[in-house]
């Protein structure tokens, strides 16, 4: 099986789900596919989805790595708020675009190192360790903004949130490039294998000579940096840092994206592409519900129903979307392991 074929087989359930969700939305909103060029900007629902999913997509990249090590990072929404506040404060203090980016990135780095040390060195369970920052971090963000919405005026900075590059929204460019960069980093080096190994069996991996402590800290740092980028985009988009609401509940959407991406919460094998498709699926649902014109109080319920349906269809018990029998165009050379062989 070639590498491309393997990848296609891995992400087939997510691709099918995405297509199905898009078809469902376009039933209610036939103009869904229309994309036009206005003032050198691409405008249309698909472009809007690709732009709005940026924060969750960025968080999902880091979250995929963390979950692959059998961990979880509940603090990413809060880290977004901290980094966004730090960026707004830096602009306010006159440090300029690069100063703001450096300070926001450093804040994300520090948050990641904090989480990583709690998990890898002190051995605290990831869900508890990151819960600390999730709760306390909002307070830190509020201290940075003095409890108000800290607005700023910097065209260079807000370009990151609302600008376009050759017609494409900058947030879209950022999350796609980040996804490609991280994907290449973990698959072109041995990082991906080593992360999967410690996620499956930490003790055996350590005995095989893997520096599991450093690797664990590194994935939480990666998650912190991804959250910093998401925070910068969110802040730039609204030209202000809202410590109370920036990134609120987004950690849950990020986890959901990873799970819809077919990555096991028990660690091990992971696919960043599949998580990004998961983020796209979530955003398509969010946007679709608004477009379909349901009263807003229905939104969360409809989203919940769709997510349940997707997860049930993907569940190992049903295997509807994983079983090659149901994917005729992939059936060739896909050899399902007969259970008899497992028992032998």
């Amino acid at each position, binding site marked *: 099986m070639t590498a491309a074929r393997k990848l296609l087989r891995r992400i087939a359930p997510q691709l099918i789900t995405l297509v199905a969700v898009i078809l469902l939305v376009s039933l209610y909103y036939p103009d869904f596919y229309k994309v036009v060029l206005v003032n050198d900007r691409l405008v249309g629902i698909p472009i809007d989805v690709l732009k709005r999913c940026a924060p969750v997509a960025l968080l999902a990249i880091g979250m995929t790595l963390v979950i692959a090590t059998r961990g979880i990072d509940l603090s990413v929404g809060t880290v977004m708020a901290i980094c966004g506040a730090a960026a707004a404060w830096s602009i306010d203090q006159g440090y300029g675009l690069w100063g703001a980016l450096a300070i926001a990135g450093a804040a994300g780095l520090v948050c990641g190192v904090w989480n990583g040390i709690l998990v890898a060195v002190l051995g605290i369970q990831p869900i508890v360790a990151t819960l600390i920052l999730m709760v306390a971090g909002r307070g830190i963000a509020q201290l940075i903004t003095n409890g108000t919405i800290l607005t700023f005026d910097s065209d260079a900075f807000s370009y990151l949130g609302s600008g376009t590059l050759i017609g494409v929204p900058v947030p879209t460019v950022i999350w796609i490039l980040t996804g490609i960069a991280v994907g290449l980093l973990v698959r*072109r*080096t*041995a*990082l991906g*294998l*080593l992360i*999967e*190994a410690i996620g*499956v*069996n930490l*003790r*055996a*991996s*350590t*005995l*095989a*000579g*893997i*520096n599991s402590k450093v*690797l664990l800290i590194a994935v939480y740092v990666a998650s912190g940096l991804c959250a910093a980028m998401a925070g910068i985009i969110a802040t730039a988009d609204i030209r202000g840092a809202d410590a109370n609401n920036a990134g609120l509940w987004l950690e849950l959407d990020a986890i959901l994206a990873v799970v819809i991406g077919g990555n096991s919460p028990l660690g*091990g*094998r992971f696919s960043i592409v599949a998580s990004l498709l998961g983020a796209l699926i979530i955003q398509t649902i969010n946007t679709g519900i608004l477009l379909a014109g349901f009263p807003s109080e229905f939104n969360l319920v409809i989203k919940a129903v769709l997510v349940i349906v997707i997860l049930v269809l993907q569940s190992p018990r049903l295997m509807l979307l994983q079983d090659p029998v149901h994917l005729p165009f992939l059936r060739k050379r896909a050899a399902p*392991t007969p259970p008899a*062989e*497992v*028992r*032998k």
Partner: protein
Amino acid sequence: MLLSTRDLTKTFPGTKALDAVNFDLKAGEVHALLGENGAGKSTLVKCLTGAYRRDSGDILFDGRPVFPQSTLEAQAIGIGTVYQEVNLLPNLTVAENLTLGHQPRRFGMIRPRAMQALAEEMLQGYGIDIDVRRQLDSCSVAVQQIVAIARAVHLSGRVLILDEPTASLDAREVAMLFDVVRGLRDRGLGIIFISHFLDQVFEISDRLTVLRNGRHIATHPVADLDRMQLITAMLSHELQHTTSHRLQRSADTSGDAIRFTGVGRRGRIAPFDLTVRPGEVIGMAGLLRSGRTESAEVLFGAVSSDSGTVTDARGAVDLHNPRSAIAAGFGFAPEDRKTDGIVAELTVRENIILALQARQGWARPIRYAEQLRIADDYIARLDIRTPDAEKPVGLLSGGNQQKVILARWLATHPRFLILDEPTRGIDIGAHAEILRLIEEVVARGMSILVISSELDELVAVSHRVIVVRDRTHVAELTGADVDSDRILRAIADPHASAEVAA
């Protein structure tokens, strides 16, 4: 007979955990069940208590065949079990633990006073005087054990299985527990006692049964047996006449030896000296928990040494963690393959290159074609039975998993490889192949330390054998002295009486 098994057989992938075992328990006896790791003790107990379903054979209770499907059903039949880790609820009171599931009730509401009265009644005759309203975890471990026993006896009442009950007790608590056990025996219960403390076995048991590699080896009244005979039965000693120590090829004494001086770890293994010469196989013998695995962990840096030095021809060797040990050219195939060895979800290929890749660092990946070449090479050389290199290693049999671990280390070309029970729980064919492999790599100058319960295996492959007892290296046999009888005598030294965990 109160409880018997007839030709009880249980197979796991790649290994026969129980092979036609016949076992008899009389009413009113304490029957010790002995054997090394993987001998089949716990599998036998789990079949008796319904935790496992047997493949074939009969379990007879009072002469009638029974088919327990769960521990609850086994309890209803009359078979109760108390495990080493007390399986009670530490945050409830003693009375609640004793009566859980059958509390006296009125209109569905628990009657606290009746419950306490019942609990006090259940504890009568156990010689402990405690307030049953106390929370369980405020009691000593010994009292918790006795509470667990009282509960098991109350619910089942005929057969009591004690699985390593004394592992975390001190000498006084052991005496207290044994008084309880004797009292139950005199009431006519049949008690199965599993322990690796031989002194305790001799003290409390009436009869004992030895299992080895899933087979019933012997059942004797304790009075007929001495320590030496017991250990002989527990450790494999069958091929004495067909294998002999190979004196013809002595180890190279000129080369670059690794010298461990005074390394050890407080509470795990007393400081010891060891010189490892190129091309040498060092055997390590001792009973379970004697300090043999602990020695290996210190040698590999899995548990860092708190004393002593390690040097080779180039100077000091840093062994503060596995990574540094691997950098120094060491390898370690641990005893527990499942938890410490394989990375089950990853493929055979990935498992084989894991240590090599970890040593190279993440930034220098081994190319896929190269990985495949290494994996296919070792699959062929070690005859690993797998359809291809991309099968998850967790789906292979035990013997093949062990070969994958060996391949992982051989791929790093170590100079010193530590093998902890490399042949446990694997079939005869793979067994012989692994021994042949050891000879092959040693001939090319690698040094190997083999830990094994199979004395004949040690005698066959080792240039010298170190005997470990009570967390101390007590003897080293070299040359013509390497034979099973001498090893057994060193392990069984009658002066070793400190086995009761202090």
